[in-house]
């Protein structure tokens, strides 16, 4: 499959009378987007705000981060199963608004929502301090249960992102990147001497606010399957989860999956990048065993020589990580793991909830329990009402002088387990 991503560099976001993309600037009339959010009766109100890199702004509680994209050629449309029908995506041409993100925020859903600081030490840990952020703060109707609220905000985010993406239709991109994978036979003929490499991505599916969707399907209910790595770029995989902010994979990171990008960079040179294999992280033992059996089998059937295995979340999914690694290695497929660590505030504890000698090649996104003091910032988009309650905070988080004492766990994508950031640990 061949997908062209046309990149439109966004250099500023401004509120204006007319919503449009022009000269690299996204102009937003919030009134155009409010009805798109409020068409869901579960959302009582919404307001939009803008946060720019370097500003003294804190966004919290952050739910999802999305990159607006629009499909201009080829089958299907963005966010299949949600916004578009379920045609297979990942071929043709898609335009992406680069340098910006849509951030969904508002009153807390669960406990595992994040913080994005646009300046100060916290900004170093989140990739979204470097993007221009259009923030959508939602208020649920009263009495709405957490999971209904989560679903409502998630879907509203996709609707708004798609509508922003539409503004870019017809615009000439600043740069175009081409991503292409071959069929099985074609790949073997074209690159007979290159090792065959796959990417096994574990999707968060522990349930109870810990879900990921593939073409609209709750990934808890899938049996591991293979995908073209370009499908994720059109929004085939979306986040629906409230896992700790530091290591949940926001939709933005699925769309810009760094492992896929970096494997493509080697494709045809040092490796033959065959496919993405998606699997889940269910909580029942039988599910764990079935899914890891299936990923190992798929790796074998595809005659892969090596894979990269990424995780989402921590604790319970560590057992899936180790099961996948053990079984895939046992099939003779060389495996490198990307994970993060919960080594305690002092860094002295065992980092994962499971371990095995087969996991001899590990890349880490750092220790999520590391404590950091975040300064008081001038403006909060969202609310600090829940800051002492989110995962990675404590009853001592909000201090008298307005500073926050938190684990980096609270910072969106700080220890991302797809290797989106540079943070590590030894």
């Amino acid at each position, binding site marked *: 499959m061949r997908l062209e991503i046309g990149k439109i560099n966004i250099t500023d976001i401004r509120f204006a009378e007319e919503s449009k993309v022009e000269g690299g600037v996204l102009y937003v009339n919030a009134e155009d987007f409010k009805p798109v959010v409020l068409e869901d009766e579960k959302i009582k109100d919404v307001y939009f705000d803008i946060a720019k890199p370097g500003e003294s702004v804190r966004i919290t509680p952050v739910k999802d981060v999305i990159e607006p994209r629009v499909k201009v050629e080829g089958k299907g449309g963005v966010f299949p199963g949600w916004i578009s029908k379920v045609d297979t995506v990942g071929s043709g041409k898609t335009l992406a608004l680069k340098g910006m993100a849509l951030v969904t925020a508002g009153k807390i859903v*669960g*406990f595992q929502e994040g913080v994005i600081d646009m300046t100060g030490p916290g900004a170093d840990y989140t990739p979204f301090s470097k993007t221009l952020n259009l923030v959508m703060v939602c208020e649920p109707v009263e009495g709405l249960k*957490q999971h209904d609220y989560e679903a409502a905000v998630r879907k509203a985010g996709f609707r708004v992102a798609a509508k922003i993406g539409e503004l870019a239709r017809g615009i000439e991109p600043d740069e175009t990147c081409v991503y292409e994978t071959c069929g099985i036979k074609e790949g073997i003929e074209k690159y007979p001497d290159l*090792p065959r*490499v796959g990417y096994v991505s574990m999707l968060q599916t*522990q*349930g*109870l*606010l*810990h879900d990921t969707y593939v073409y609209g399907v709750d990934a808890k209910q899938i049996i591991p399957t293979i995908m073209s790595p370009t499908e994720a770029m059109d929004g085939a995989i979306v986040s629906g989860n409230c896992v*700790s902010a530091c290591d949940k994979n926001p939709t933005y990171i699925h769309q810009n999956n*760094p492992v896929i*990008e*970096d494997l493509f960079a080697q494709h045809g040179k*040092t*490796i033959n990048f065959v496919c993405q294999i998606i699997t889940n992280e269910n909580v029942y033992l039988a599910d764990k065993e079935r899914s890891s059996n299936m990923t190992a089998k798929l790796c074998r059937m595809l005659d892969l*020589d090596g*894979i*990269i295995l990424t995780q989402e979340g921590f*604790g319970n999914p560590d057992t899936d990580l180790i099961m996948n690694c053990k079984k895939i290695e046992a099939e003779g497929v*060389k495996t*490198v*793991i*990307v994970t993060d660590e*919960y*080594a*305690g*505030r002092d*860094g*002295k*504890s*065992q*980092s*994962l*909830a*499971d*371990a*095995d*000698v087969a996991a001899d*090649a*590990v890349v*880490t996104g750092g*220790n*999520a329990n*590391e404590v950091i003091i975040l300064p008081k910032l001038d403006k909060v988009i969202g609310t600090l009402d829940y800051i002492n*309650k*989110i*995962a990675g*905070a*404590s*009853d001592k988080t909000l201090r008298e002088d307005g500073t926050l004492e938190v684990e980096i*766990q609270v910072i969106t994508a700080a220890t991302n387990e*797809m*290797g*989106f*950031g*540079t943070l*590590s*640990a*030894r």
Partner: protein
Amino acid sequence: MAKIKVVHYINQFFAGIGGEEKADIPAELHKGEVIGPGMAFNTGFKDEAEIIATIVCGDSYFNENIEAVKAEILGWVKDLAPDLFIAGPAFNAGRYGVACGTIAAAVQEELGIKSMTGMYVENPGADMYKDKTYILQTKDSAAGMRDAVKKMTAFALKYAKGEKIGASCQDGYMNQGVRVNFFEKERGSKRAVDMLLKKLADEPFTTEYPMPDFDRVEPNPAVKDMAHAKIALVTSGGIVVKGNPDHIESSSASRFGEYSLEGVYDLDENTFETAHGGYDPVYANQDADRVLPVDVLRDLEKEGVIGKLHEKYYATVGNGTSVANAKGFGAEIGKRLVADGVDAVILTST
């Protein structure tokens, strides 16, 4: 700014006294003298630090009189009150490495004076002391002296000045078993691809997280006589008395709670809730028995299937809680359960 004061420890060989035949010389204090590798350190320090005394001891003497010689040297170092104590480097010399590790660790622990040493990774002193002092990694023989001195002086100045010490791989010391965060040059995905390319080519690569020996607990044998057993409930699912009186954190718990079940036959939404931040709390808050099955245990008690439900239960939050904390909670809860004559425990998670 005043110069940083350093006391240096070396063996008889590096002091130029002699080899194996002189390994039994007792400890000597050379105030104001800079001897052997100390010269190179002093040059490397430029004007920022200086060696104010050198302590020399034979390797055999040190290892055979360890307590006495340690006390003697600690006495000298205490009086000299340096800012930093450096031992070695010992390269792959076993007894010298152990001496350097022992004395550096003692200076740090007993006098509270910053200490460091240097040696080869396979020196037996390395494994014994790498978590007790900073051990800079050197080559295996004195041919690596230049390199060792360069690394050690740079580290010494940074350390003595109180600058932040980075991760072990950044600052060249042996990992102390403490995970330290830092920013790499390449993002994680690129590092993973590079590591995979090496693994595929059978080239050496270094994992960023060496797997620990995993601590597995063998289950106890089954309880034979349940009808007379006292059963306790313990949960990592965060069920607490409403309002979370102990402020157990929603993730990375630092404590557990002990709550009474006296007169409680059914948990309801007015009296119990979950503090756990790792799952949708709606169903647990509606009916906390779903996580902590008090209602069912009370039924079994009535039916005589179990002897008695213990009148206290223990709860914490498993979400992101470090293994070390969890182990600590487990040990303490276990102690209290044993003291209360509990025969068996049902552990519920989420």
